[in-house]
């Protein structure tokens, strides 16, 4: 199958991007300045990410749709305010995670942002469940960009007036060159920022205007180091079908109202795990020194017993040291527990730590 290109492909080339294939798309892994500089620029200034490979699923409907989606997602969608977003997951009946996603309530229905590698399968699962009751569009005509970092609000507001008044995890329709754009105040870097859904034909112009205002394109390489420092999960690594949201330490994303009633896909297992606990759980792991423990690195306890595995690990440019997360047996998940990581045949000391590694305050309420 030929790899797809996003509508920003030409701009990536103009900015000397190095490309990699990711989920069937040619995506920029980095530009000429490199991952560390791109990472720091996002933390200190403003970075633009092309995330057009991600799925933008629009489902149109009203009260019935809310009821049906509540049978799928562990969310209180009925009481979710208009234009507000929630982080959630698509699970199977065993509560295994098929995808993690952001769902936003719009006037017309819901907008769900899905991972690129999962979107087609997600669509199939949702279609099977919802049948033909609602119009469902996995929109290939729209691009998605994220602008992240402390200067992003000012920069984006200069181009699209009014966005600075959005609250964290909420959105609205705006206009750019007479085109309707849907903007949410959200992101996946641990920084204040926005995600912008815009028709393909205008994304190049918008991105170039944002660059002219001082933002820079940032590749997937820095996106990975940023999200890991922020303690955020990457599907296919930290999350998959063999892990549940409770094991992934994401129970904060499950609505308490829904737990009491159950009746969503995977609810039996979720409720059982919330009551009885889990045998493995996702934790932050801080290696001592500079050794980098990458995905699949084995974790041992102080008695040299294998107790888990790293699911993401890299060098964190803002932390200026190695950072990792992984799953360990529950009894070893307490903060400051000493563990050992097997890297190239040698065991290196590390400790369990709380997430995120890097913390900044999001804009919660500007209104």
């Amino acid at each position: 199958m030929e790899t797809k290109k996003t509508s920003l492909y030409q701009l990536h080339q103009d900015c000397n991007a190095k490309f990699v294939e990711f989920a069937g798309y040619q995506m920029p892994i980095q530009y000429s300045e490199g991952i560390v500089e791109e990472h720091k620029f996002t933390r200190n200034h403003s970075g633009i990410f092309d995330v057009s490979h991600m799925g933008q699923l629009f489902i149109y409907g009203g009260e019935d749709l809310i009821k049906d989606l509540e049978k799928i997602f562990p969310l209180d969608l009925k009481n979710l305010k208009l234009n507000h977003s929630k982080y959630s997951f698509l699970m199977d009946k065993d509560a295994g995670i098929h995808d993690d996603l952001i769902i936003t309530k719009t006037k017309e229905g819901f907008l769900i942002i899905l991972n690129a590698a999962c979107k087609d399968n997600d669509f199939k699962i949702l279609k099977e469940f919802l049948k033909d009751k609602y119009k469902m569009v996995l929109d290939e005509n729209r691009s998605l960009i994220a602008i992240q970092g402390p200067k992003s609000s000012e920069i984006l507001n200069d181009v699209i007036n009014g966005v600075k008044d959005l609250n964290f995890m909420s959105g609205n329709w705006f206009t750019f060159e007479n085109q309707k754009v849907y903007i949410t105040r959200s992101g996946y870097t641990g920084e204040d920022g926005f995600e912008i859904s815009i028709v393909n034909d205008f994304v190049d112009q918008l991105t170039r205007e944002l660059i002219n205002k001082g933002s820079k394109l940032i590749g997937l390489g820095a996106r990975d180091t940023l999200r890991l420092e922020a303690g955020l999960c990457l599907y296919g690594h930290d999350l998959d079908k063999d892990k549940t949201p409770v094991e992934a330490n994401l129970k904060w994303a499950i609505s308490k109202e829904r737990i009491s009633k159950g009746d969503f896909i995977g609810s039996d297992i979720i409720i059982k795990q919330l009551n009885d606990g889990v045998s493995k759980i996702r934790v932050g792991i801080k290696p001592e020194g500079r050794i980098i423990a990458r995905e699949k690195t084995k974790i041992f306890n102080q008695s040299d017993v294998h107790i888990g595995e790293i699911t993401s690990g890299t060098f964190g440019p803002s932390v200026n040291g190695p950072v990792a997360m992984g799953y360990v047996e529950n009894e070893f998940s307490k903060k400051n527990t000493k563990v050992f990581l097997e890297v190239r045949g040698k065991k290196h000391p590390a400790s369990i730590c709380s997430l995120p590694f890097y913390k900044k305050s999001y804009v919660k309420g500007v209104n």
Partner: protein
Amino acid sequence: MSEVKYSKEHEWIKLDGDVATIGITKHATEMLGDIVFAELPEKGSSVEKDGTAGVVESTKAASDVYTPVSGEVVDTNQAIVDDPSKINQDPEDSAWFFKLKIKDPSEMDTLMNKDDYDKFAKETSA
């Protein structure tokens, strides 16, 4: 001092008497991206031609560093362990990796000169 030679694994080597200084090439650092970790062989240890003699890691991945000739490690560059970004800044000079007391000078003959290496690097990265 002899001319600088290069290996197919993208190391450079400079011989001074019977002591060789070894590092990785600028081309290698450009392929790796930002280097954030370096591990060097132990002083006093023996390394064999084409064997592993260290590790460098970028934000993306880990890569082995090989020694282009055999010998005993007589010195290592702690400065690049403390600040691996030095390797990106000055790979073919101050950011050397280790020094070897070489075992067999004829091993140097198996390596490339600068012109041949530049050609090799261009061809393999295309």
